[in-house]
């Protein structure tokens, strides 16, 4: 009923339900943090996440003790779940950066309600992603620092020609900038929490974290500048990080990897996957915490439109891969494509085409874009589809390359799954902690969307 009512709400320019004031916004969002009554659903969600986190601890410990042989890797498939998961998680992170940086620069106000959660998602996703390149190595205790350029007595440097070294720079930069951006955005809200907290300890904690924010004009002026600068820094990262990740494949010579289409196609895929994940998180959250007023149907619809656009780019990418495999007249490339269609992993390829290519076509319909449950379902298809896409790229290409004598097959083992599911546990644990102790929507930004802000602005103009 409520949804219908809002749907009928005429002002298309508004990204917040009518009737909200500064006070009501602040109250609503901060109370989710400052309340003493934690929702039962939070406990359930956190417990699930924390339990899965234990799988990660077990999996990683045993990998360190025994070796990566626990995973299904072999000759010829040297990369498997770890790299798939790495690319998948990194891709997911991209939506957060896009929302907070590019949409900020483009002055898209609707981003304000979702940017905080999306940025948090970015950070946790990058944390999950970063684990894989490290633990997938044979000797992670050495890989942890030998890939960094540090001066040493043997004058040994990393090989700067290797895309893996580029990855190190790309991912660490990405993580650092995202973290700083996120934290900067949190400062005014942390100050609000400090001011509203009743408990002395909370006051101190939020007080320290808010870095002495007083809300003065000078504070705001500096804040705006910093945000703008960080947004400027982040913007190229949205494009560069996944481009560099795609170089891991594109610069190699394996059929199915060696493709110039990879950088744009990876970036589009990342945004696609990222928005799917933002929606996957926001649709239940807005329901549970009653944030339908702030994350409105228009938000969902806008995100669905972004998904549709990027999904079409990705689908175009699949078609171009196939076209060029044929058009290049390269027997290895063409075989690779036929192998995807009819080889041992064909069932995955066609699942991928359905999940990423066919299912999202439903988003052309407004009805589906504005029905959260259906939208959630489409997003799940995309989440799975994007994971399968990386499976198709990584092990399928490797399992049958140039020498038929060395062809093989790859299957994830229970250890592969354990670590993958474990990182979901890490993600959920972090995310649940985040929504419990930090405002999951940006209070001060949502305030600017509220009626009183609009009124102020209008009166200012008049």
């Amino acid at each position: 009923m409520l949804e219908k009512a809002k749907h009928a709400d005429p002002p298309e320019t508004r990204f917040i339900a009518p009737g909200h004031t500064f006070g009501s916004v602040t109250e609503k969002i901060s109370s989710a943090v400052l309340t003493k009554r934690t929702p039962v659903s939070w406990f359930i969600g956190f417990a699930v996440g924390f339990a899965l986190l234990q799988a990660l601890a077990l999996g990683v410990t045993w990998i360190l003790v025994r070796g990566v042989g626990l995973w299904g890797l072999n000759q010829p498939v040297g990369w498997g779940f770890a790299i798939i998961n790495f690319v998948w998680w990194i891709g997911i992170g991209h939506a957060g950066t896009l929302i907070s940086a590019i949409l900020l620069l483009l002055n898209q106000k609707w981003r304000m309600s979702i940017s905080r959660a999306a940025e948090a998602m970015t950070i946790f996703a990058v944390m999950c992603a970063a684990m894989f390149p490290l633990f997938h190595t044979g000797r992670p205790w050495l890989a942890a620092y030998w890939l960094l350029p540090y001066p040493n007595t043997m004058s040994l440097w990393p090989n700067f020609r290797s895309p893996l070294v580029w990855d190190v720079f790309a991912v660490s930069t990405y993580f650092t900038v995202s973290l700083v951006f996120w934290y900067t955005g949190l400062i005014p809200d942390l100050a609000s929490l400090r001011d509203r907290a009743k408990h002395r300890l909370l006051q101190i904690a939020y007080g320290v974290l808010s870095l002495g924010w007083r809300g003065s004009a000078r504070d705001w002026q500096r804040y705006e500048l910093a945000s703008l600068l960080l947004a400027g820094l982040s913007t190229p990262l949205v494009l560069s990080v996944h481009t560099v990740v795609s170089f891991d494949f594109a610069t190699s010579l394996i059929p199915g990897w060696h493709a110039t289409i990879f950088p744009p196609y990876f970036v589009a895929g990342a945004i696609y996957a990222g928005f799917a994940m933002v929606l996957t998180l926001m649709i239940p959250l807005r329901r549970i915490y009653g944030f339908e007023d702030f994350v409105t149907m228009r938000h969902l619809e806008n995100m669905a439109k972004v998904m549709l656009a990027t999904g079409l780019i990705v689908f175009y990418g699949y078609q171009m891969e196939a076209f060029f495999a044929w058009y290049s007249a390269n027997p290895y490339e063409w075989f690779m494509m036929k192998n995807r269609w009819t080889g041992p992993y064909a069932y995955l390829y066609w699942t991928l085409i359905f999940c990423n290519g066919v299912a999202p076509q439903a988003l052309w319909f407004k009805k589906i874009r504005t029905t959260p449950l259906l939208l959630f379902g489409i997003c799940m298809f995309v989440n799975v589809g994007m994971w399968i896409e990386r499976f198709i790229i990584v092990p399928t290409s490797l399992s049958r390359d140039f020498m038929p004598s060395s062809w093989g097959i790859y299957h994830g083992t229970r250890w592969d799954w354990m670590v993958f599911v474990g990182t979901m546990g890490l993600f959920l644990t972090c995310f649940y902690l985040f929504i419990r102790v930090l405002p999951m929507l940006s209070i001060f930004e949502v305030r600017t969307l509220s009626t009183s802000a609009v009124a102020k602005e209008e009166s200012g103009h008049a």
Partner: protein
Amino acid sequence: MSNLDPSALRARLASTHGPTYWRSLEELADTEEFRRHLQREFPATAAELSDPQGRRQFLKLMGASMALAGVTACTRQPAEKIIPYVDAPEELVPGKPLFYATALPHGGFATPVLVESHEGRPTKVEPNPDHPATRGGTDVFAQGSVLTLYDPDRSRTIREFGEIRSWDAFVSRMQGAVLAQKATGGAGFRLLTETVTSPTLGSQIEGLLQTLPGAKWVQYDAISRDNARAGARAAFGRDVETRYRFDQADVILSLDMDFIEDGPGRLAYARTFIDHRRLVDGRTDMNRLYVVESQLTNTGAKADHRVAVRASDIEHVGRAVAAKLGVAGVAASALPSGVDGAWVSALARDLSAHRGRSVVVVGDRQPPVVHQLAHVINATLGNVGQTVEYTAPVEVQPQVQVEALRALAGEMVAGTVEVLVIMGVNPVYTAPADLEFGERLKKVPLAVHVGLFEDETAPYCRWHVPATHPLEAWSDLRTFDGTVTICQPLIAPLYDNNKSAHEVVAALSSAPTQDGAEIVKAFWQGEFSAPSGRFGDLTNVDGQPFPDFDPFWRQTLHDGFMVGSALAATDVTTTSAPVPPPSRPVQSSATEITFSADPTVYDGRFANNGWLQECPKPFNKVVWDNVITMSRAMRERLGLPKPDLLEQWAPTVTVRWKGREITGPVYEQPGQPDHSINVQLGYGRTRAGRVGNGVGYNAYGIRTTDAPWFGVGAEIAGTGEWYRLASTQTHFQMEGRNLVRGASLPSYQGDPGFAKHAEHVPPYEETLHGNEWKYDKGYAWGMVIDLNACTGCNACVVACTAENNIPIVGKDEVATGREMHWIRIDNYYQGEPDHPRSVETQPVTCMQCENAPCEVVCPVAATTHSTEGLNDMVYNRCVGTRYCQNNCPYKVRRFNFYLYADWNTPTLKMARNPDVTVRSRGVMEKCTYCVQRINAAKIQSELEDRVVRDGEIVTACESACPTRAITFGNINDRESRVAKLKNEPRNYGLLEDLNTRPRTTYLAVVRNPNPELAPEGGQGQGHSG
């Protein structure tokens, strides 16, 4: 600043012209002190930085304190003692290997070898290139023997009923037993050995039999040559050894003989056969090989025309050929299905067109009549004395072994066997199942088992004596041509109680405590002082007699063979007895079963050898198992599901034959004749050791005395169960890629460079970046592999394993796809799946690409290029991202997914090559062209102030290769063998269109089909890229 002199200041001001500004009196005074102050940019501590003493002091202190802080975290290194030699062994320079010539027994015959010894530890078997019979070359068994020597499961104690006994106790017990036997003339005494060619052991046994005239000596090899012996007896009325001269043969017909892999002459035969079809140095003619065989063998894969028929049908093919050739007294019998009359006619015409230059050879599995037939055909074709020679038997006492064993088993039941000494044989495992040898052995009151392991036979015997390994004991052996090699030990027996066969036989004699060295030397001293003539003239290479025994002995030991001891060809006369009438043809739908020795564990004696278990068997590439081989058609008729090669699962079947049954996994083998299954002996052992126990099924379980090699009437039924079958190759089609390139001889003659034309190779100059390194100075290492010479025998694979400390990983890891071999033999079929037109083998190692795709992607530069063109691996630096492996188009890199190397077993540590790093977990590894050998040779050449000579560096694979298919060297040296081979028109690089610029290149395959047969049949015809 207090001691400024005002008058001096004034004077200074007065001496200047114009306005002078000063900031302080000190500046005005320009004192020394002021100048110092001015120089100090950061007056407080700055000088410390520019003062070398102070800075160094600071860094030293900081470094020392950090080092001290770090030291606490270090593990304490274990205390190791360095014990110097009190008496340094002769010629031993620590760190430099020594090589000794000796021979290893195989089926009783010698495989002449040189053995590399590091500080007294034999680590690697190399061929003996000077040996007149083989001229180098080794096989998998010789290469794997080092691991058996150090096998931790070897038996090490003398036991009676399982209780530990001393050697003296054993000797006195034996003396007593022999004494008791003397009373009856030895009627209850039996000796069971393998085939014996050792002159010393033979004379010892003959001496023993003289003192015990009633005693009997039985020889038994599960892989016996009974049929060849019986065939020769039938043809010539006496025992003769047949020797082939493939170097003289232009047309060869093999009737089920895998002369490349089987039999005592295999190394020499492979070499001479291949030498006669080596298309190098402008040679454009080659021999032609026809093979009619009952299973796909390495010989069949090299055939120009191959026909697969059941073993039972081969006799009829032979008869048809003989009839066409007009051999007297042989009538043509009906040809089995699958053999074309035109094919036989063309073959016969080809043979008769090459009288005296052709040869018909027969495998040991074919019944005597086929051997007899071949002798007659060869005589008719005038081949005797040309391509076939007959000599006196090499064995001390030729026997039809299975008959002798059957007789022995009968006596055991009758209870007339009182003392049975079993040496080197494992009859409880290998004897035909119908003899029930184990049960009967229990009836022998005093059974003695002498063996390397406490194997299946040991628990049935009262006594067990651990035997020495051939690398631990003195002995002597003869090669197939009779050339004698004195076997010298490379190491003292690892365990004190291990005794050689000579010592055990001596324990039965009147001089029971002689040691092996004395026995062997005494025999040859006797032979030297009073030559029997059986071993030639005992002269040196120039035909001059030795002045006395010592130089003779030293020379013979040094060379690894006794000059002129080969048996001379003798004239034979065919008996008047005609070739027996043809046996009744077997119904074409009857199911035949054939037995064969396993290609890697042989008769089962190598079952506990991990190197050989993990060596992929030719063609099916299965490891750690034997299979039940059948054709696709047969599998479908039986209603069995298709084996899943990709996921490495196979359906199992039960084979019921003569009332016994076995169950094993099915392998669908292209080239296997229809209506025939093949089972391999040597598996299903129960007391082989930790490696070999419970691996595979035991085919001896259904093998009987009346049909040791093949027979019809097997019943096969699927069990409905699946079995994990690990194999290193799962796809055998080339998918239209130009990996193995080949042509028929006429098209090669028309276009010698056909292989180069198959693919576009980017020119070296075509680059955006400029060529970083031209490799035009100094050494540029390269390799050429002649695919026309490769027989796929696997010797290189095991040699590489031994040389490079390559770990074994076990069946499950191989099934996952994690085998560690640095060199592999790829195998491709062409043509129809059931009747492949050709079967190609291609050894693949690291190509040492000049533009190596693996190097650019390594993030830590753990694999880099040397100035000499090697793609080096820095194991210490590798963090194991496996990116290099992914980016290697040849897929030759191997990753240590777990800690595969055995770091704990002490004896296995002794087997390691000290020049090669033992890799740890998480590290990538691969072929390095045996860089340790390259560096050893370079160091030596630098000491001698010269360049490395061509052929001075021989990689392990190259050295092991019996057919010299692999050549390594410096391609910058225009005169080197490898540089010349690279100029051959057949030379091409693998996947060269990727611009990897591989340093290893291949010489394309050329087949020589009969022009009469080539157009329609196309059997065995080469294929163009």
